[in-house]
């Protein structure tokens, strides 16, 4: 595969490619399975970096236990995606526990979108809170609990 594709794909990702480059890329994607694989890897990277940047932004705006911006980034946890997935179920449960029980109007699509957004923010907070305040062996939801008291 030609090495210039790295540059061409990234220009397309950034919305910087010319009409000719875009057409060449589309033709290449139609014909070349290896190029499609490279393109899809860049798209995956693009979304993953966006999610990480969002998580850092949530931490910057929402946590009073925040480390410095640079510290939060430099100390980003290993396996953030694992942490986020593990925290997801708990975040959802917490959100539902906070919802009013009665009367219960029918939930609209927009309500659900809002709950999902809140859930994502909660997940991001959980994932980053744990880096600065908790040892690695603790569960991602441990920050929700009071610290244990040690018998004297």
């Amino acid at each position, binding site marked *: 595969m030609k090495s210039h594709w790295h*540059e061409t794909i990234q220009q397309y990702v950034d919305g910087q490619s010319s009409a000719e480059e875009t057409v060449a890329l589309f033709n290449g994607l139609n014909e070349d399975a290896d190029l499609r694989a490279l393109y899809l890897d860049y798209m995956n990277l*693009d979304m993953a970096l966006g999610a990480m940047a969002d998580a850092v932004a949530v931490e910057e705006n929402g946590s009073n236990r925040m480390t410095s911006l*640079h510290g939060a980034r430099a100390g980003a946890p290993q396996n953030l995606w694992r942490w986020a997935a593990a925290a997801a179920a708990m975040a959802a449960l917490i959100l539902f526990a906070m919802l009013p029980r009665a009367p219960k109007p029918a939930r609209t699509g927009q309500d659900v979108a809002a709950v999902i957004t809140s859930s994502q923010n909660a997940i991001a907070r959980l994932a980053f809170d744990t880096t600065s305040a908790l040892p690695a062996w603790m569960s991602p939801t441990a920050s929700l609990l009071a610290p244990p008291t040690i018998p004297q």
Partner: protein
Amino acid sequence: MRNLNDQHQIQFLRLFAEHEPALRTYIRSMLPSRGDALEVMQEVAVVLWQKFAEFDGSRDFRKWAFGVARYEVLAYLRDLARDRHVFDEALVHRLADDAAAAEPRHDAQREALEACLQKLKPAQRELVLHAYAKGTRMDELAARRGQTAMSLYKALHRIRQALLECVRRQLSAEGLP
């Protein structure tokens, strides 16, 4: 005791949260920009919830969600095609099929990315996370850094290529494709 409606909502949120990163990548792979992908992602979340009552729990949620997402993307692209050059329908289906098949590799890459990001120089890590922060305008970021937008894009390209090569190396070392 939770009623059936609560359980239904919890089941949906659990499944959605579990498969959300894969769904984002899947949608992004068929659209020209991250902004387009986020817009379609919101619509897909709503449609999935609206149709969740029809979802057969014995089926694969990811596969079902990908199917819904593919048609939402196609509808979105039809609107977009009026003023922008976008993938034709055949290429969308080709990419969607490849993206679905590549999901285990992409999942592993997302995990490997954590470690690769730590291997960057702090200034590079700072740059990439700033560039990806919501609302960032690259021309403004470039001006703040005393660079041209072009040189900023070039720097970002080098960082992304390094990250991609790093995750591919890491997966290869673990014997993954």
